[in-house]
């Protein structure tokens, strides 16, 4: 990389940390930044909002804590939520491991592991309402799970059986996006639609016009022009959109420094989108900042950019060899900040996480992994005619003719006669 690269963080250091106003017309207090350097975390990753340090100690932050009043109530609902998030993290890690294994066994063509990013995904996704809509990238398996995507719906894409595995409207989440950053604009457009609906007739809008959209993007994605345009359109239209950037330090082999001379949380301010930098391995802090951002979105305060500082513990995908570009020390330093361990330590200390609960979660994880595996292995190759389906919504004589010609051709081969296609190429 060019030698000058590290040398020009030219932004006023006093502006780092980026605790911006988190609600229209109201300023949060100074962020509670807890020193975490004993973890040996890479430089520049400690100026984040944090509630749980890596030992699992909980630090107060009034500005964030107010978004966790229900959690702090300590009643059964709180316990349920806290246990559910623990289960989310453990189960998604287990699913991820299972999918990685399936790929190693040749049952999946590819898999992009989420390992290490459980808190960033679970904390943000658990802040959502059912009527919100998520536009994600390709690594948000925990988000998908929380939205209601079933294990067997995750694998078709990665086995190469279909370009997507679920109906977005069933779960309020678009299917994986491979073109880096493209989905951010879709999230803004959808959110603008929510605004338009609400203005027309809030009573008749199912979500009362207070739904929001979430765009998940990576640190690398922040470089794409589409993401910048999304920030601008969101600010201009004041759409109810939360941008969740999982800064997992890497875009394949490229370190985040290549994409971000200054912290990514700052990226939106020049467009009019305030930013917040949160410890992405602290599920409570992520939950709090996302709830805060969603509240603003729902109440007319417009978009927010959340930078969740985390780490991709595994390879970019199963096809990647990260030892070519990063050190074991770096990986180890992040292992010490594991998102599940610190949360578990805190839960255990407060009595939420008992051996019995742990056991139950592990069983759920195993069962879900088994479902994933069974679902994957049960996938059959679709018929040839599938390629002509759903290309168009309305009758398309030319494509229908192509389909028929190809069916005739296949018939001459004698090995497969494609079923009549439904829709798309009538």
């Amino acid at each position, binding site marked *: 990389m060019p030698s000058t690269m590290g040398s020009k963080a030219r932004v006023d250091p006093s502006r780092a940390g980026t605790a911006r106003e988190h609600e229209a017309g109201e300023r949060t207090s100074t962020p509670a930044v807890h020193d975490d350097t004993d973890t040996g975390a890479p430089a520049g990753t400690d100026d984040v909002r944090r509630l749980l340090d890596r030992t699992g100690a909980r630090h107060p932050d009034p500005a964030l804590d107010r978004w966790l009043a229900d959690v702090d109530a300590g009643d059964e609902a709180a316990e349920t939520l806290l246990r559910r998030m623990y289960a989310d993290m453990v189960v998604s890690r287990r699913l991820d491991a299972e999918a990685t294994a399936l790929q190693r066994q040749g049952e999946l063509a590819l898999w992009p592991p989420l390992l290490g990013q459980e808190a960033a995904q679970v904390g943000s996704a658990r802040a959502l309402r059912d009527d919100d*809509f998520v*536009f994600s990238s390709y690594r948000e398996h925990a988000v998908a799970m929380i939205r209601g995507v079933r294990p067997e719906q995750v694998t078709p894409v990665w086995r190469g059986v*279909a*370009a*997507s595995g679920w*109906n*977005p*409207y069933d779960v309020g989440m*678009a*299917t994986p996006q491979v*073109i880096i950053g*493209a989905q*951010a*604009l*879709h*999230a*803004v*457009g*959808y*959110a*603008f*639609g*929510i605004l*338009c*609906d609400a*203005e*027309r007739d809030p009573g008749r809008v199912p979500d009362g016009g207070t739904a929001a*959209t979430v765009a998940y993007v990576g640190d690398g994605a922040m470089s794409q*022009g*589409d993401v910048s*345009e*999304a920030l*601008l*359109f969101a600010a*201009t239209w004041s759409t109810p959109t939360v941008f969740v950037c999982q800064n997992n330090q890497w875009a394949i082999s490229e370190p985040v420094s290549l994409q971000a001379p200054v912290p990514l949380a700052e990226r939106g301010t020049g467009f009019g989108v305030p930013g917040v930098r949160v410890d992405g391995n602290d599920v409570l802090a992520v939950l709090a900042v996302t709830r805060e951002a969603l509240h603003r979105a729902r109440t007319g305060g417009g978009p927010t950019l959340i930078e969740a500082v985390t780490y991709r513990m595994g390879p970019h995908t199963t096809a990647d060899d990260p030892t070519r570009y990063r050190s074991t020390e770096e990986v180890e330093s992040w292992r010490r900040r594991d998102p599940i361990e610190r949360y578990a330590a805190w839960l255990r200390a407060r009595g939420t996480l008992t051996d019995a609960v742990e056991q139950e979660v592990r069983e759920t994880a195993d069962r879900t992994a088994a479902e994933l595996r069974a679902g994957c292995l049960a996938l059959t190759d679709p018929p040839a005619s599938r390629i002509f*389906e*759903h*290309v*168009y*919504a*309305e009758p*398309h*004589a*030319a*494509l229908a003719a192509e389909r028929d010609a190809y069916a005739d051709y296949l018939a001459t081969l004698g090995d497969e006669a494609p079923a009549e296609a439904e*829709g*798309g190429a009538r």
Partner: protein
Amino acid sequence: MTTTMTLAKALGAGLRRAMTDDPSVMVLGEDIGRLGGVYRVTDGLQAEFGPRRVVDTPLAESGILGTAIGLAYRGYRPVVEIQFDGFVYVAFDQIVSQLAKMRARTLGAVTLPVTIRIPVAGGIGAAEHHSESPEAYFAHTAGLRVVSVATPQDAATVLRQAVACDDPVVFFEPKRRYHVKGEVDPDVDLATADPMSAARVAAHGDDVTLVTWGSQVATALDAAVAASDEGVGVEVIDLRSLSPIDHDAVAASVRRTGRLVVVHEGPRQAGLGAEAAATITERCFEFLEAAPVRVTGHDVPYPPAKLEGHQVPDLDRILDGVDRALGRVALPARAQRTEVGA
């Protein structure tokens, strides 16, 4: 009820009708609101339907297309204006990777009825990037429909059909012909109107089939008249739909005439002329008396205004193509080449 109006006004009338028929129709683009578009196609729409249905957007075409996709995801039916043909390329990814593929990607779950209006082609003496003919790029992209209009009536009707269509449609407007007037009924019943995918026989003839679309249709009709003066019957087919192409209509004509000329403004190489020629050769090989002839823009960047008369096929170049299709040597010099453009 029919009224005399320009093609540009007919587009506006079609849009107004589409917005009235369906409250989910929204119009988005640069300068389309208060200004009514640089060609005034959307004139008056914002005043009538409000700034939430006729939306002036930031100056970023990828952003416009990407947010239109999001709006369609939410259930809206966005009609996007790209101010000039040459500005669509910054939105290319959102069109070819997202808009075109979303339905297949989601196995039919997500319907994106986005219409992209693009004033197209040259001959108006404009600056660079204002006279492009990018039809072939979009016709080569599966998942899109591509249409063009040549008459005021089609401007209104086909635009309404495009907006009503549940597929994404790239809708090309012949900007050089915006001022052409005709009788227009903006309220024709779409159920009984010819579908937008059907070609239209614009002039009958038995000697040569001439296929074109958009702003070249008028030139082709002039050529047909000139040819008929020389005793040659030219059948002019206005394709209207560029994807899919109504090859049946063309083949039916070529089986009769045995000769095909395709005319378009865009570059020749890998243009739609090649597609028409190749498909008709496949379908009508035994009927063809001569190889199909292409009369097209040259394979050069669109030239500056003072030279565009050499790029845009004109009456004489079309007649030369007809001659070639007829196997005639070039005709003697004609009195004067006809001026093209506005």
